[in-house]
């Protein structure tokens, strides 16, 4: 009797062919992107999204063509931070044009599609059993987005990942070896423990770990023009990957994120200086020419 591998084709369902076509559309859509940089952590609330938009802006200022993909479909924040919550999606000749910030950074965020008063939902034959299929459906949606928008010619596509060490690895698998990772932590043992798990999980994949950023590394007091401690002193060692920099918490930076002003109002401060230094270090790690 014939076995599975003795039979060519699939009898007409074409499901494997359709999966291959999806992957081709994603690869074609990203063909003009020089560097895919995923900003993750594993831990939530450490400032991945803030760092993503701030880094994108500093890279843009340095003359690089940058776009952001907010891959956190369930908790999208880039639309608000980038000021594209009310973006107009315009059909181009073949694909949809990517909404842009006032400074010209392309941004796709589910926050431009779904108001904050609503949660992402899918039609389903197995409603009430989403734990069995939801992650698969979200990655299919990610593929659809990558294939359907004009990413164009970019120096960097920065991907803002959702929390979860397991999710971080799923994105590594989805994007393949060409995606490099930057992990974000804060100076708490709880956060560092989760980030360490992400480092361990990613270490089993071929993707490059460019380094980590310590966010909320003290807070910047404008009155004193000084950085003061925010967490208990922490002398922990690194994660065995390069430290790209430390960013102090800056209430003004947080405010500009809340109001979608960051791209136009990232002012001179200890935080913006730190992010600029991280952008330089990131470009060094990527061997990218710097203007």
């Amino acid at each position, binding site marked *: *009797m*014939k076995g*599975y591998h003795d*039979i060519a*084709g*699939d*009898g*007409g*369902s*074409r*499901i494997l062919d*359709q*999966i291959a076509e*999806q992957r081709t559309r994603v690869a074609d859509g990203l063909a003009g992107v020089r560097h895919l940089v995923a900003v993750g952590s594993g831990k939530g609330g450490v400032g991945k999204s803030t760092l993503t938009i701030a880094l994108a802006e500093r890279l843009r200022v340095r003359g690089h063509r940058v*776009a952001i993909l907010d891959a956190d479909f369930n908790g999208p924040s880039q639309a608000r931070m980038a000021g594209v919550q009310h*973006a*107009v*999606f*315009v*059909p*181009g*000749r*073949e*694909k*949809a*044009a*990517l*909404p*842009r910030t006032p400074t*010209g*950074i*392309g941004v796709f965020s589910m926050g431009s*599609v*779904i108001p904050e008063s*609503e949660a*992402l*939902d*899918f*039609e*389903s*034959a*197995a409603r009430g*059993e989403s734990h*069995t*299929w*939801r992650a*698969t*459906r979200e990655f*299919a*949606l990610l*593929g*659809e*987005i990558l294939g*359907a928008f*004009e990413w*164009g010619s970019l120096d960097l596509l920065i991907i803002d990942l959702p929390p979860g060490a397991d999710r971080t690895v799923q994105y590594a698998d989805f994007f393949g070896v060409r995606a490099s990772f930057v992990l974000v932590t804060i100076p708490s043992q709880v956060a560092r423990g989760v980030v360490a798990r992400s480092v361990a999980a990613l270490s089993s994949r071929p993707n490059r770990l460019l380094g980590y950023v310590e966010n909320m590394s003290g807070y910047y007091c404008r009155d004193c023009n000084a950085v003061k401690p925010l967490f208990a002193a922490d002398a922990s060692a690194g994660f065995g990957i390069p430290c790209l920099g430390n960013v102090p918490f800056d209430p003004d930076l947080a405010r500009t994120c809340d109001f979608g002003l960051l791209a136009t109002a990232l002012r001179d401060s200890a935080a913006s200086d730190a992010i600029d230094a991280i952008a330089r270090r990131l470009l060094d790690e990527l061997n990218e020419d710097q203007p």
Partner: protein
Amino acid sequence: MKFLCVPCDSPMKLETVDPDRGSLSVVYSCPECGYEIAMLTNAYETQMVQSLGVKIGPAGAPAESAGKCPFGAMIPAAGTAAAPASADPAVVRWTMEAEARLANIPEFVRPMARTGIERFARERGVVEIDETILDAAREFFGM
């Protein structure tokens, strides 16, 4: 998944797919002896395949689509995104070419695209959306 007619040792061919309340009735037949079987999926099995974002059905046939708007249950008019605009003369019209371009973008952003572009056109006193207006809107809003 493949099906084999054991007596003929021959791969069976997919004939029809009929969706029914979360189940799929997938009929395969043996090209040698004509024997037919039906695979009846439960809701989990149906959803697992649909979650891959693929269409289920024989090539060339109208298929049960897994590519439906994922937000159909939550975005008003998402399911009617491709419907022509109202006959009200105050409403801007879309040329066939512009409609075709709109159909190229993901279904889940089409209603928003239509609304935003119509507003863009009205603000400029334009009553018909053609490819020139789409190009202008793309230049104005897009990267």
